[in-house]
């Protein structure tokens, strides 16, 4: 097997570090950055696509460049990383260890909204800034935790962008499905409000639980209503399922939009580029959005032999960029880092970014679309990397 997979790559890199560690004790000069993330269990699917490969690659790049510049001195980064086994109690316990026993200098966040919620009180109590790239929801923002920063666009912002695009295309009706999870509910609430404002009619709305294996009756019902747009506020299984089954029944409205995992390269690979041609979804970037993005993309492909996803991966990278800039600017005083993050406009791979409270208020909602095997940004126009295919071509 000549396949370098992230887990294995990370395993080799970190095991080597662990084995060497006793012989060569981490220099007191190293900056220790801790995190717990899912390497096993159901959360690992997302965590190992979007998050941990970026953490590891970032640390490698920083160290290859001699380390982080703290007060004029280059200091290397040492990652203190644990598996959280996709278990909430383990997440909390591990961050307690990182913050109070290991006394790491900084932390990186765990994967997912729930786990980020769970460690927010710890972050505030022990004063560790969190730059979270896989946590979305107004409820998180509403906690008003001074140490918490959400890098992803919020659901209502994402939905507003979609609504604007629909208005621009004079789309009048939409059928919606959403997953019964916090994400799906918040997205739907945002969508409903946006649609109302823009005068777009939701002709049918259905929700479904995780673990569904057949959506064709639902999709058929929607097909019969002939909506202009189909909007699926889905998690990965629903994203794959509704694509395949819509294709099977020939449900191909002018706009076909899906949420989580649409931006994953595996979505294109599993469904084939021809099939996903014209499918829209949440995105933020792609290698064409800028030189920095291209460099990141190439480095990721080189390091992990796979492409990063076109949504949260870049947000994750942006978070690491912000952290790096903060440390190099104000040193390792975490209060100062927090203030720096909160008060500065940051230059990142996905553009300028500024926080208001916990919210990233700079990155707009983005609509992307698969075209010829690339997830092109098609809305808003000033960020677009390609013109939108409208209406969506029939399934192939």
């Amino acid at each position, binding site marked *: 097997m000549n396949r370098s997979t992230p*887990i294995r790559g990370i*395993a080799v890199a*970190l*095991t080597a570090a*662990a084995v060497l560690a006793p012989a060569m004790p981490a220099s007191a000069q190293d900056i220790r950055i801790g995190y717990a993330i899912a*390497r*096993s269990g159901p959360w690992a699917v997302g965590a190992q696509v979007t998050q941990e490969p970026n953490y590891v690659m970032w640390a490698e790049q920083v160290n290859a460049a001699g380390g982080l510049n703290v007060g004029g001195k280059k200091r290397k980064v040492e990652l203190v*990383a*644990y*598996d959280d*086994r996709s*278990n*909430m*109690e*383990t997440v*909390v*316990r591990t961050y*307690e*260890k990182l*913050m*109070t*026993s290991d006394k790491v200098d900084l932390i990186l966040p765990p994967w997912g*909204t*729930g786990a980020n*919620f*769970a460690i*927010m*009180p710890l972050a505030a109590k022990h004063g560790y800034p969190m730059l979270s790239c896989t946590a979305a929801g107004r*409820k998180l923002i509403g*906690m008003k935790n001074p140490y918490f920063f959400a890098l992803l666009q919020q659901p209502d912002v994402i939905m507003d962008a979609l609504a604007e695009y629909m208005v621009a295309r004079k789309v009048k009706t939409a059928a919606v499905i959403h997953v*019964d*999870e*916090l994400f*799906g*509910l918040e997205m739907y*609430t945002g969508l409903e409000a946006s649609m109302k404002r823009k005068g777009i009619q939701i002709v049918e709305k259905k*929700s479904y*639980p*995780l673990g569904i294996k057949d959506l064709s009756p639902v999709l058929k019902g929607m097909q019969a209503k002939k909506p202009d747009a189909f909007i699926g506020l889905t998690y990965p299984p629903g994203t794959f399922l509704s694509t395949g089954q819509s294709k099977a029944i020939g449900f191909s409205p002018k706009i076909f939009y899906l949420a989580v995992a649409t931006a994953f390269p595996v979505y294109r690979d599993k469904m084939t580029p021809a099939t996903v041609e014209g499918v829209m979804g949440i995105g933020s970037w792609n290698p064409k959005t800028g030189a920095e993005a291209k460099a990141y993309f190439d480095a990721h492909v080189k390091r992990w032999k796979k492409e990063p996803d076109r949504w949260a991966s870049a947000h994750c990278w942006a978070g690491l960029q912000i952290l790096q800039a903060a440390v190099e600017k104000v040193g390792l005083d975490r209060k100062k880092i927090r203030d720096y993050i909160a008060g500065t406009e940051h230059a990142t791979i996905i553009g300028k970014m500024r926080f208001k409270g916990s919210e990233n208020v700079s990155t707009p909602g983005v609509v992307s679309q698969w075209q010829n095997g690339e997830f092109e940004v098609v809305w808003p126009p000033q960020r677009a990397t390609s013109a939108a295919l409208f209406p969506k071509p029939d399934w192939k």
Partner: protein
Amino acid sequence: MSLPSPSRMRGVPFALVLTAGGGLVLATLPWLLSDFLLALALSCLMFAALAVSWSMFCGPTNYLSLATSAFFGLGAYVTAWGLESMPYGLTVLVGGLVGAAFAALIGLAVLHLRGAYFAVITFGLTELTLHSVTYLEKTYANTAGRIISEAPENTVIYWTVLAVTLLAIATAILVRASRLGFALSGIGGDEERAQTLGVNTRRVKVIAFSLSAFFPGALGAAMAVRWTYIEPLSVFNPFIGFQTVLIAMVGGAQTLLGPIVSSVFFSLLTEFLRLRFPYAFLIVLGLLLVVLVLYLPGGLASLFVRRGRQHA
């Protein structure tokens, strides 16, 4: 539970005193341990209480219940729903009572099933509860999870869980000595025979099942505050139930000490392996489990309890 008969009461006062003494020692841990070690102790206590209460019913009767997660999750939701209007201690009590009441309800419906069918139906009921709560929350509260904003201190959580654990152990000691426990082992031996000897087996089973469900309910309510965000998938996580069964059976569900030793053993071992070998640790754990079951079929308890077997 009626009063134990004198002969079986032998050793009970000693065991209770030992439990109380151990409890006092453990109660000082918050002053001795770091936050992380305290959290680890908390996890040991939680699984000890879960495994002991599981064994309380399932040990003597040979039932295999996978409903622990359901009781735990309901308890957690009592906290999620009630913490704003109730003090923490009260939610723990109510959580336990809700767990017990739910167990009594489902016990009436499903305790006539045995073997794999009972295991599957208790699992099914847990999932049914999970998805019903999800559905109700979504439909009536338009939410998928709840936030606990005012969590008590870690030490308070620790002492609460310790109290629940001690209560579980004390209850297990008393049940084993009581007529209830005697009836349960008769049911485990031959249920119909126990009936012909005057045991209202249905009532006994429902009472014991319900009693044993108080503790996971209370623990769910006590532990929920550690997670800030309560969602059905994490508090009704079937792995809580699986792990409980695993710990209790590997320890030896027929014994009292087995599940306690096993929960400490497994919590510490898992944590050690997880921290020391961040990648392969679950593989090691899996191997270890297989080897343990194959070569120590009597459970960990068989290492320190030698059961004399005479033959006539």
